[in-house]
């Protein structure tokens, strides 16, 4: 698409997410979902973004100290990034395996930490990148095309 300023039609939503704040958990994802509904994306696209947003948000809540969930929306695509400061992921390949989790028991008892979060995100994504530095934090980027 030929545009002089492609950023002009982007809508950016940005939410801070606090580690271990289970009461507020999910609010950022809900806001993102409602914004997409208002804009009129298809239910299938909204479902994929909602799952991506929620799993990313919960990863910050469960594993990180704090982070930011950012969604950039335009008619062609939705780009979601989750950036946190936290312990990071030592072995990304392991973390991507379904069933692998480092979540403690009390988190698992709540039905989290099943080792499905990152695989779920990847299944919903057209593009998926994850970078992590142990001891510093993790950055996840997902692109979902509106097609």
């Amino acid at each position, binding site marked *: 698409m030929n545009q002089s300023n492609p950023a002009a039609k982007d809508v950016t939503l940005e939410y801070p997410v606090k580690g271990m704040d289970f*009461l507020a958990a999910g609010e950022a*994802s809900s806001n993102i979902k409602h914004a997409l509904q208002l804009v009129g994306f298809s239910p299938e696209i909204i479902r994929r973004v*909602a799952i991506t947003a*929620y799993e990313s948000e919960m990863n910050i809540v469960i594993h990180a100290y704090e982070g930011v969930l950012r969604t950039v929306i335009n008619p062609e695509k939705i780009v979601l990034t989750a950036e946190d400061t936290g312990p990071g992921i030592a072995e990304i390949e392991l973390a991507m395996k379904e069933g692998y989790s480092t979540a403690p028991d009390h988190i698992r008892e709540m*039905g989290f930490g*099943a080792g499905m979060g990152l695989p779920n995100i990847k299944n919903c994504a057209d593009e998926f990148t994850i970078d992590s530095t142990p001891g510093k934090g993790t950055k996840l980027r997902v692109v979902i095309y509106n097609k």
Partner: protein
Amino acid sequence: MKLTDIMKELEAEVKCCEQHLNREVTWCYCSDLLSDVMANASKDSVWITLQTHPNIVAVASLIGLSAILISRGAVPDPETIEKASQENIPVLTTNLPTFEAAGRLYSLLSKQH
């Protein structure tokens, strides 16, 4: 089928959002793992679970479930009811264990398919 049509068979009690019991129910998903529900439950389903904490509400709301049914007499946290009322997600409870609740619901729902 509507939520009102399944209440009796499930021996269910409404904990909140009674005004939304006319909502459609097309299917059901049973799981106590939140990511599993996110990935695999379909819209307009009833979710049967033993989880009682408020995070179940966000899951139900994000993927458009019609209700949460808490089984085997488990009691939802007050924060769960509060959040569910805000998000318009009916929370139901039953003394039936998950298997029996799901079995009864399967009989009802498969008749309409």
